[in-house]
């Protein structure tokens, strides 16, 4: 083998690897000079740009972002207590998820999620207690309430993308003006489904926004091991539609880019790929131990890019935020989250019979017999 580490100095490899990993993380934020950025880390709006949302909207968005952060903390602690299964926190990606969802109209647009978009799908109408129920392992949590335009969470990465394209294309064929927003990660982008779906969306000019959350990691795999491309947005050209990069920790940039993409889709302009460059500020999920592959600096050093801090700084600069407002909002959120957890935990306990329901509209006789036998024995 070429370039194999010498047997007596195996550490060199590991060290080299770490160095390059740190570079990687930086690189995943080095947009090609065309990254849309509006709200700086210090909370000021960059020269030549302006806030695309009203102060009221921003406060509302902030509330969803804070809610998301609160749910993260509570869910992780519930998981540690054995009251919740594996949970994937949104921490660090609140601007990315909330900003994009704010450009959608829950009355007509659809969200086709991966699994790390809690505030987006809840804002879109999926009840928070139902969402928690799902991660508590209760089958009832899988049911999106009637009328709520959200598809089920997806565990098989990228498998949701073909569904989103079919949905958007089908709605367009039926003369609807609905837009479909689908979410996926930098990791999921490597799956064949991601290619097949984007290519078809281009051909059919389906009203779909592909919202790629590049949070720098797929579990332990850094972005630069995921692809050698400088960015993901450049893939769109190969499918015949626009691709844009936004600072995913910048609520305004995310919202503005998404609003434009949604408008394009709605008016027949076809799909857009948005690469939202954000950062997973923590573990992949409650089963993950990021100290095995992230440097301490990576784990802590992103606080200054915290998307929530930026928004509060901006609101303060507009005299629309202060400590009291924060306390008040947090108190309301705490109550809401308490209630949702209570409601989820008070939900009818799962029933073994649910194993057999919703497999078919009209189950084969053999499955009915299996169900009867199982119920006899429980």
């Amino acid at each position, binding site marked *: 083998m070429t370039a194999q580490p010498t047997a007596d100095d195996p550490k060199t490899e590991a060290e080299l690897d770490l160095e390059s990993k740190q570079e990687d993380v930086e690189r995943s934020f080095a947009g090609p000079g065309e990254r849309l950025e509006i709200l700086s880390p210090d909370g000021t709006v960059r020269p030549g740009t302006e806030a695309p949302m009203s102060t009221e909207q921003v406060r509302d968005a902030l509330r969803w972002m804070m809610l998301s952060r609160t749910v993260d903390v509570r869910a992780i602690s519930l998981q540690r207590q054995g009251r919740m299964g594996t949970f994937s926190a949104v921490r660090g990606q609140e601007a990315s998820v909330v900003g994009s969802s704010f450009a959608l109209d829950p009355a007509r647009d659809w969200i086709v999620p991966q699994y790390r978009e809690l505030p987006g799908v809840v804002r879109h109408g999926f009840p928070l207690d139902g969402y928690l129920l799902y991660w508590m392992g209760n089958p009832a949590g899988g049911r999106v309430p009637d009328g709520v335009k959200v598809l089920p969470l997806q565990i098989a990465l990228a498998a949701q993308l073909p*569904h989103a394209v*079919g949905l958007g294309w089908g709605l367009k064929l039926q003369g609807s003006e609905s837009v479909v927003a689908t979410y996926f990660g930098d990791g999921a982008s490597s799956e064949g489904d991601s290619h097949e779906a984007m290519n078809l969306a281009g051909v059919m000019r389906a009203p779909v926004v592909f919202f790629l959350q590049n949070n720098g990691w797929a579990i332990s795999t850094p972005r630069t091991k995921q692809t050698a491309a400088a960015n993901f947005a450049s893939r769109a050209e190969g499918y015949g539609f626009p691709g844009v990069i936004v600072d995913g920790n910048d609520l305004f940039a995310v919202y503005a880019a998404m609003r434009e993409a949604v408008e394009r889709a709605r008016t027949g302009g076809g799909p857009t790929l948005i690469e939202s460059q954000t950062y997973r500020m923590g573990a992949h999920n409650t089963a993950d131990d990021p100290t095995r592959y992230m440097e301490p600096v990576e784990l802590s050093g992103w606080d200054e890019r915290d998307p929530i801090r930026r928004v509060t700084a901006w609101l303060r600069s507009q005299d629309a935020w202060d400590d009291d407002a924060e306390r008040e909002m947090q108190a309301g959120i705490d109550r809401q989250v308490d209630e949702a957890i209570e409601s989820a935990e008070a939900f009818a306990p799962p029933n073994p019979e649910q194993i057999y329901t919703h497999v*078919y509209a009209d189950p084969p006789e053999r499955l009915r017999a299996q169900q009867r036998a199982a119920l006899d024995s429980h």
Partner: protein
Amino acid sequence: MATMTMIEAIRSALREEMARDERVVALGQDIGQLGGVFRATDGLLKEFGADRVFDMPLAEGVIAGSALGLAVSGLVPVAEIQFLGFTHQAFHQIAPQIARYRYRSQGRYNAQVTIRTPFGGGVRTPELHSDAIEAQFVQAPGLKVVMPSNPYDAKGMLLEAIRDPDPVLFCEPLRGYRLVKGEVPEGDYTVPFGQSRVTREGSDVTLVAWSAAVQLAERAAERLAEEGIEAKVLDLRTLVPLDVEGLVSAVESTGRCVVVHEAPLTAGFGAEVVATLQEEAFYSLEAPVARVAAPDTPYPIASIEDYYVPSVERVVDAVRRTVSAK
């Protein structure tokens, strides 16, 4: 009633249902202008237009996966995968996605999706075009697996499939497309799933088959009749749902059984047929149920495929052994 080939029966089901229900759309590789590589969709583009008949990019995964999305949007997609051997490419969308969407969403969404696809040997196709991998889809709960053997069933079961609120893998016997003819009613009728059919009566042994193997079993039965062995032929018609009752009663009536299929022996659906009979008809079996199947090898190249696909001789041999056992 008109006499039709399999392919004509399939085409007429598609045409009639698209005329009847404007939610029905057809999608697949080369199904538009060309009318499909076997002409199953011939004329549909002209009749129903480019908003209901779609030539798709060459990507089976997204043909299947987007069909699920179309269904959620309120349309009724009928997708063609050019050959069952290329459903391999769509397996991750069919088994863990389409088949489970009702379950995953706890009944909120259902995948009213039909996937039509030809398969089976004896027609000298290139590699992978003849693969009989139907059993692999039986372990995908939520999906129905439908195997018509004749034009009447092909039309009636395709109409049933399109209207079924749950997803259906509809496998069409390539070899029978133009060879197998039969009476087919002009208008609307459906053949319900989960009902096997005795296509020939006999009291000595029951031959169980589906799709093109039914004709094989029938030819074997004719041959056997010449030597005084009366074989009943049972066409399973659908693997999921499985007509356990019909299967058991057909085999109980003869006490002996041979299962015939084109897929390799080991873990082919024949194994399930035997296991089911063994559980449900154990005390009626007078001899082991025999399986006549392809060997446990990949589908071979054209010039030797006739030694691979089960032959009338092999079925006849197996029956002789089965009836003389004990």
